[in-house]
């Protein structure tokens, strides 16, 4: 056995747990789901080929479009809101203020809390009658909305909650901020730049790769959201917070429509890939490459 062949063999053997797992648990189900998406299949009976019927049914399914719309709104709002909050918090925490280490830990803490616990806690915060938010609004003489019970505010409530879970994005922004060469700020000081100009002309360009990464990741996570709306609103009221992942789950495991669920799943996969790629292409134009 030649050394090169031995190296290939050993490489394959060491990576075989992943390769086998990938083939069995990802690639094969992926191919299977593509096939199933062209059938009517309830798991209990053999699949019946229906051609493109499932994809055609999606076009005429109002709940599908509603879930797509809800998912898009959630993902876009989470990305924009989360990005803004995470940058502002990271910049604030880098100001060497007293207690910033504690605040940094507190900002990251929500990331460590199980999503079920966090969701139930937020349900109580949003409770229209006994919730903290409406109690505070009440002190100011404002009658708070029925946050989760009103179709007009339910999605907004979920987005606001997502902004609370930006700890990991803040960490990435903080790391990027610390990588900005101090010499640039010193030069800016010599040129008489104000804080806002420094932020716009130095900080933002220098941390733009991290921002782009955060944006793409938050879009991907936002498009796949499942647990938070399931726990907090169960998709209601009137499907105002039904997102695509929830609809796929219902179609598959509540209604036994595996074929339709697979078609929905493929739509979600392709939409996520296209949107993530589009976001990356757009953001790339604004990303400042070091040394470029």
């Amino acid at each position, binding site marked *: 056995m030649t050394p090169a062949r031995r190296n290939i063999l050993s490489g394959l053997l060491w990576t075989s747990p992943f390769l086998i797992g990938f083939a069995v648990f990802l690639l094969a189900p992926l191919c299977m789901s593509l096939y199933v998406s062209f059938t009517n299949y309830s798991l209990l009976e053999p699949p019946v080929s229906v051609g493109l019927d499932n994809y055609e049914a999606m076009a005429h399914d109002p709940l599908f479009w509603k879930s797509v719309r809800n998912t898009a709104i959630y993902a876009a709002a989470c990305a924009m809101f989360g990005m803004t909050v995470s940058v502002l918090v990271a910049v604030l925490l880098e100001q060497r203020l007293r207690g910033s280490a504690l605040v940094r830990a507190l900002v990251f803490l929500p990331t460590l809390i199980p999503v079920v616990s966090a969701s139930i806690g937020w349900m109580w915060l949003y409770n229209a009658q006994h919730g903290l938010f409406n109690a505070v609004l009440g002190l100011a003489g404002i009658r708070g909305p029925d946050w989760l019970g009103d179709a007009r505010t339910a999605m907004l409530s979920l987005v606001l909650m997502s902004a609370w879970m930006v700890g990991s994005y803040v960490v990435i922004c903080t790391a990027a901020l610390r990588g900005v060469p101090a010499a640039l700020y010193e030069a800016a000081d010599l040129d008489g730049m104000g804080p806002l100009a420094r932020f716009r002309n130095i900080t933002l360009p220098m941390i733009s790769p991290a921002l782009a990464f955060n944006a793409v990741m938050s879009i991907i996570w936002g498009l796949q959201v499942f647990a938070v709306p399931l726990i907090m609103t169960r998709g209601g009221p*009137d499907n105002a917070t039904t997102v695509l992942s929830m609809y796929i789950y219902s179609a598959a495991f509540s209604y036994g429509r595996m074929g339709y669920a697979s078609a929905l799943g493929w739509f979600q996969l392709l939409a996520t890939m296209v949107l993530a790629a589009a976001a990356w292409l757009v953001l790339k134009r604004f990303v400042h490459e070091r040394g470029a």
Partner: protein
Amino acid sequence: MPGLFSFLMPRCPDAPMPSTKMPPVATARTITRRAALAGMAAAGAVGALWPYTPRFRRSVPRGRIELTYWEKWTGREGLALQQVIDDFNASQSRSFVHLVPIGDIDAKAMVAIGGGDPPDLVGLYSYNVPGYAEARAVLPLDTFPAADRLAADAYLPGVRNLLWHEGRQWAGVNTCYTLALYYNKSLFRAADLDPQSPPRTISALDEAAQRLTTFDSQRRITQAGFLQNLPWWWPYLWPFLFGGSLYDESSAAATIDSPAGIASFEWLRASAARYGVAATRAYAAGYGRSMHSANDPFISAASAMIVQGPWLGNFIASLAPTLDYGVAPLPVADNLVDDSAPIGLLECDVLMIPRGCPHPQEAFDFLLYHQSQPVQERLAAAHFKPSPLARVSKNFMSTHPHPGIAAHEAIARSPRARVLPRTRTWKQYSDLTMSAFDAVWAGADPAVTLHDVARRAQALIDNAAAIRARRPA
């Protein structure tokens, strides 16, 4: 053989060879921090992984055929079933039933049967019967040698309808329930209402509810008289109370948008408007996750009247045994009152033998035992439920632990007991009604909303029929 697996190690010419010298032996007697942490981690791992015997686990005697039985019940309901199973296991020496409590049992049963690895017995819901029967995912009970011991007339007519599909019996009953009106007698007295005369009509219900509902200075509800969204579990119930229906089996038509159905949803919208959409939603949301706990809206007297199943009596007995309450058939539209034939929803849990199960004959033997009158009555009493059988023993009612069982029994035996649509698309249909409930509660037009629900439900029903027609018989 040091070289046997040497090809597994990529050769790295610059890497030093591992030393063959033994590391120095530690002589310190104190425990290092690392050792202490490792010890604690090891102890934790052992504790977490230590094999234990679940509450429902029984050791299988030698020589017995082990039957696996998946059931959704846990807690007191699960223990009552376990006692039945223990008795069966002691009554014969051929098989041994092993009860496995399963959450989200619909989905898991579907996957297990589809995957060819089902349990011997599975406890599902009556609305699963049409889908499982049409898919032949469960075995028809008339194919077993002793099937004649399952007499159709042994069951209540409504229950029989739920167990049979297209002329064949597919399931045994596993307790049944009806929905009734629970009312708090103490709150009735406080509001100058007669606690012996619960509302019998919708208009009487509205009147009592208004007298029992209280608000604070900010128009927030502090005590509900009756709210249809508390709980919101049966958004499809209301058309029945106005003489409507959900499905016409003869024509396979969704009928929720009949005039009676629309009238029922107009009543819902009027109720929401009367007490305030936001106020009612906020009040109900406060109890969304506390049903059947000490903070249950009825048990905690936060709602004077509520629609619930007989299991509520079980929870009251354990959580608030001094609660002074009554149970009555559901109020109906004024022109539909007939005390001898109350209108209500009848549903049941079912026991089925999955296709491809390892021991179908032994499973059927257990099912036969389970369907006997003593077992069903025992299980029904332990669950605080009515009997699903046509005949009951003399002592069943007098010894039943539920003080309001008579109301549930009356509905179960009523010719006007309603059952859910027996179509495999019911789950989707029911989700459409839930969305419609939300929309109408918020003020949407009931007629428009229900016409849309009926149209979409009909499309699902028709599509399912078309697909079925394409399958080989």
